[in-house]
């Protein structure tokens, strides 16, 4: 959190502007006038400038592999060019997703640990093949970072939904982290869906352990076995069982299909909206949203679904190209 300090905000803007390129004459005059306004302006600017310059030490350190403190780092030094451990490299992977190779971000020993970013756009799917043989299928509008090598197996789900097929390794548990929640694989195929700080875990095979890292004393870890699901939020992890069919339906997206059984239209519309830029709009209140829907639909074919609402349920459908408004 940055403290509110107008002088520091101005100083930072001047610094960022000069970091982009030299100031023109008018800019120089403005900057000098700003500096001369008060000593406080000057010391504030000098402080930020010193910090920004000091960050250049990182660049110099790229040439210093001796800094790698861990065995992981040492091993990686052999496998990868040194610059790759330090510098973000952006590469286009496959046809669907953009994979950005960036240093692992949230932990303290960055940039010594490598990591990969995977993301999908709205309506896209992508399968990531990890070094350890595990696979991650990313559903629509999903972003995650994987740090998987012989020492650690960790995936951070920043957004969206993914299905994990994990190659079990007793000594190196496969861990999915999402916010403060952590899912530890116990030999498994499972999916994780994130909405804000809420997480839904569905286990197709094996079992996982769901933990609340922020409240380890209040919330005991929950073991979610095969054909079960857990809805986890900070301080609350609830478990429920699922039939084989329900699990298959919940994972229908892997085939590009949305499967609903007796679901209110309101929820069905929200589901379609995850996969399509063209959004279905159902009135928030009133009986319309309560209409029950069942069936199997192509996730990205929202137009077909809208036609069905019209022909099957006699609803009015108003499509302006961006939104499809549903009404009675």
């Amino acid at each position, binding site marked *: 959190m940055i403290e509110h300090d107008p002088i520091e*905000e101005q100083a*930072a803007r001047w610094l*960022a502007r000069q970091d982009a390129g030299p100031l023109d004459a008018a800019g120089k005059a403005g900057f000098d006038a700003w500096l001369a306004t008060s000593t406080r302006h000057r010391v504030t600017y*000098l402080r930020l400038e*010193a910090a920004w310059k000091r*960050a250049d030490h990182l*660049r110099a350190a790229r040439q210093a592999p001796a*800094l790698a403190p861990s065995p992981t780092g040492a091993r990686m030094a052999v496998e990868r060019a040194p610059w790759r451990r330090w510098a973000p490299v952006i590469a286009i992977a496959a046809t669907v997703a953009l994979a950005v190779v*960036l240093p692992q971000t949230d932990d303290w020993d960055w940039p010594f640990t490598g990591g990969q970013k995977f993301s999908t756009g709205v309506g896209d799917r992508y399968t990531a093949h990890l070094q350890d043989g595990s696979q991650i299928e990313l559903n629509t509008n999903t972003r995650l970072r994987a740090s998987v090598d012989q020492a650690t197996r960790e995936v951070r789900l920043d957004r969206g939904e993914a299905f994990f097929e994990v190659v079990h390794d007793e000594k190196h548990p496969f861990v999915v982290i999402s916010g403060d929640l952590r899912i530890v694989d116990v030999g498994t195929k499972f999916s994780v869906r994130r909405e804000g700080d809420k997480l839904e875990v569905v286990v197709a095979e094996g079992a996982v352990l769901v933990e609340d890292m922020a409240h380890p004393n209040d919330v005991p870890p929950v073991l979610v076995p095969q054909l079960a699901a857990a809805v986890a939020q900070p301080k609350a992890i609830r478990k429920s069982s699922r039939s084989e069919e329900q699990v298959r339906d919940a994972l229908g997206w892997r085939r590009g299909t949305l499967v609903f059984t007796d679901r209110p239209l309101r929820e069905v519309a929200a589901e379609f909206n995850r996969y399509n830029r063209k959004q279905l709009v159902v009135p928030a209140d009133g009986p319309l949203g309560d209409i029950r829907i069942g069936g199997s639909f192509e996730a990205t074919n929202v137009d077909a679904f809208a036609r069905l609402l019209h022909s099957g349920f006699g609803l009015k459908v108003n499509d302006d190209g961006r939104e499809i408004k549903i009404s009675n």
Partner: protein
Amino acid sequence: MNRSAVDLWFVEEVLPLEGALTGYLRRKWREANEIPDLRQEIYTRVYEAATVAIPEMTKPFLFMTARNLLIDRARRAQVVSIEAVLDSEGLDVADTVPNPEQNAVGREALRLLQAAISRLPPRCREVTLLRKVHGLPQRDVARRMGISESTVEQQVAKGVRLIADAMADIVPEPVTSRFGRRPRKVGQP
């Protein structure tokens, strides 16, 4: 920007003491949210004093200034007892032993710097990494990330403030004493 000897003194001798100064302020001042403002005010005062004459010993001078400011503020606000500011700890500022934190250089400083950057918000961190670790100019950072140059500039402005705050505890290379700690001339009062 024309740089003066005072600028150089401030950057090389005062700023590296920020970690110690912040620690001192935290111990002495209960209102944590006021500490950044106090720190900037102390910097302003020492800088202005240095334009008259650069102090011989930076650390005692900085801490004396800090102490005086706290006393001023406490008197005005009447929130902290003046005694709390004046107690014995306030007096150790006159010590002349080398600053222990000046030994913490290189590797450790680098680690702290990395930690500081790793805690930046994602977009800000990516900009900072590309700009500082990879050494790309802002324009290329924008192209790489597919965002506008003005967005990059905004993220730099944000990042520099967060890094400056996070790096308060980092001390860079040992100060080659260009200022201060000069032997007194014989006969000087």
